[in-house]
């Protein structure tokens, strides 16, 4: 029965990460939880981007300061420099959070790293993704990662970092990094608190109609003489395959690799006892695909599904 429930649904991702999301309209959508590899990749890209942005900003500030001093303008007071320094430290803190907040509050709910890997943040209960949820999950990121790293670097620079503190910092970060691997929804602590999760955001283009009804001419030169409906299959010849084989055939036709088509055509011919149509595989496969699908879809309308050739 479990197999039956899978019929008519998309295939592809790790079955352990597949979930069903029911929209408020009552339509079940298949979504896949983003795998840990995508999460860590996205984090890496984001950290690199963030580091680059901060570096660019710092360099700009230094450049302005250098230009200011070399232009021979009157020196600014110490108090003012100090004020700028405070603004800089507060600014760094806000910029780090603002980067994640700005991008995850946007329509795509994904930072640059997440976009690059095709994943996004979503609300776990299928409802609206709120600003509070985004803030909660990003605030926790600070606690999980940035703060202990900052504690350790500032302690290390000042020379006050004890071995115990260093180890506990490393363990702290390690525990939070491993946390997503320990639950089935790949939830970070921030996701847990915020009621969010990170899912794959697939984008697929609409392919052309495979069963176009226009029989292609054979690849060999002697085509024009052949009739358009040269391949007609009997019911018994079509009944050897099910939906799984149909979808494989569809993939073969969409990719249109001549070698693959030749192999598949030969396999089908061996199964139904035909001689392989050398040089005219595409027309043969399209005709077989169209008639098989027509047959299976007719069954579908009467409530009979056939998962694959063994069922």
């Amino acid at each position: 029965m479990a197999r039956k429930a899978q019929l008519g649904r998309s295939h592809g991702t790790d079955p352990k990460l597949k979930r069903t999301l029911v929209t408020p309209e009552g339509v079940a959508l298949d979504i896949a939880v983003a795998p840990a590899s995508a999460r860590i990749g996205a984090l890496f890209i984001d950290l690199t981007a963030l580091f680059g942005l901060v570096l660019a900003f710092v360099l700009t500030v230094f450049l302005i300061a250098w230009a200011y001093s070399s232009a021979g303008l009157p020196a600014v007071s110490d108090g003012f420099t100090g004020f700028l320094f405070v603004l800089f430290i507060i600014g760094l803190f806000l910029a780090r959070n603002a980067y994640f907040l700005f991008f995850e509050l946007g329509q795509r709910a994904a930072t640059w790293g997440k976009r690059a890997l095709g994943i996004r943040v979503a609300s776990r209960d299928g409802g609206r993704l709120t600003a509070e949820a985004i803030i909660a999950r990003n605030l926790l990121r600070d606690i999980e990662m940035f703060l202990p790293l900052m504690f350790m670097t500032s302690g290390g620079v000042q020379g006050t970092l004890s071995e115990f503190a260093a180890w506990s910092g490393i363990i702290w970060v390690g525990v939070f990094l491993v946390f997503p691997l320990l639950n089935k929804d790949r939830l970070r602590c921030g996701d847990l608190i915020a009621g969010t999760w990170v899912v794959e955001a697939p984008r697929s283009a609409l392919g052309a109609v495979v069963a176009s009804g226009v029989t292609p001419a054979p690849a060999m030169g002697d085509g024009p003489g052949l009739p358009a409906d040269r391949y007609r299959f009997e019911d018994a010849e079509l009944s050897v395959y099910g939906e799984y084989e149909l979808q494989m055939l569809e993939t073969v036709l969409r990719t249109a690799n001549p070698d693959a088509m030749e192999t598949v055509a030969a396999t089908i011919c061996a199964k139904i006892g035909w001689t392989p149509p050398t040089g005219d595989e595409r027309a043969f496969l399209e005709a077989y695909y169209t008639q098989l699908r027509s047959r299976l879809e007719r069954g579908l309308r009467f409530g009979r599904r056939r998962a694959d050739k063994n069922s």
Partner: protein
Amino acid sequence: MNGSVGQPGGEQAVAAAVLRSDRFRLEREADWVRLDGMITAMEKGRLKRLADDDVMALPVLYRNLLSSLSIARESSLDSGLIAYLESLTLRAYFIVYGTRTTFGGWCRSFFGGDLSRAVRAIGLDIVIALAAMVIGAMVGFWLVEADQQWFYRLVPAQFSDVRVPGASREALLGTLFGDPDGEGLAVFAAYLFSNNAQVAILAFALGFAFGVPTVLLLIYNTASLGAMLWVFASRGLTVEFVGWLSIHGTTELLAILLGGAAGLHIGRALGFPGRRSHLAALSHSGRTAAQVMTGVIVMLICAGLLEGFARQLVQSTEIRYAIGYGILALWLAYFFAFRPRRS
């Protein structure tokens, strides 16, 4: 079979399609492509560039897409088509049920009532955290009174340069009314800002462990404060010390209090979820706590600025009291008396 030659398009293509499910697809394809274009534009943040007609049509197109997907799943075996419809539906769903607020709009509703509501929602946790802090301060004070060696255990070494038990009244006064010149003040303020922010955020983070470490952290931090208070009180400088502390401390201690309370709120939800599941209780309390924490960070920034610039620049104890408690009154009024109607 209709073997028409050439590029079939529109009506002709529908007529040419052999399969009923392909005819179904070709009849609706134009709508899907239109919705696809609109969603792509909205994902890129170009909502303003959409034509009015498109925006008006969005809900209808979305509903039609949902019904198309349901029909296609039950009648079509074109897996490419179903995969496309699934991904388009998911994208449309995220747009239709995505975040509605802009950053600016969120700021307005946050400071215009949401923050105050969130703080009032964790009232019980605030009382518990306050009790922990008061107990901590009293414990620190009495421990040092009983045995002065406790002072060195409670107060971090970097703060106890001059301010130690047995220091002269003049030396202590010097730390309270230091030179208004402001040498390195800003850096010190920035340091303290990040230090206190860390304490507040840590108090929040430790709420995960059922709130127990949060309470311990609050007690420890205020115990060192109580110990310091004893040093000044022993030389009759209680009023001056409290004034020195109040100017930024009221904001800062309130921020630490709220951070600890937010952590306790999460810890309590984890320990006593009630009739909800643990995860549901956690995410519900987490959203309230996150709002409070955002407010805490704003308060800490205010405290950092006050610390750096007002504390050493304002040298009169009366003005220190006035600023410190004036700001405290403002915060309390904002959190507890400010009750705008929900928009």
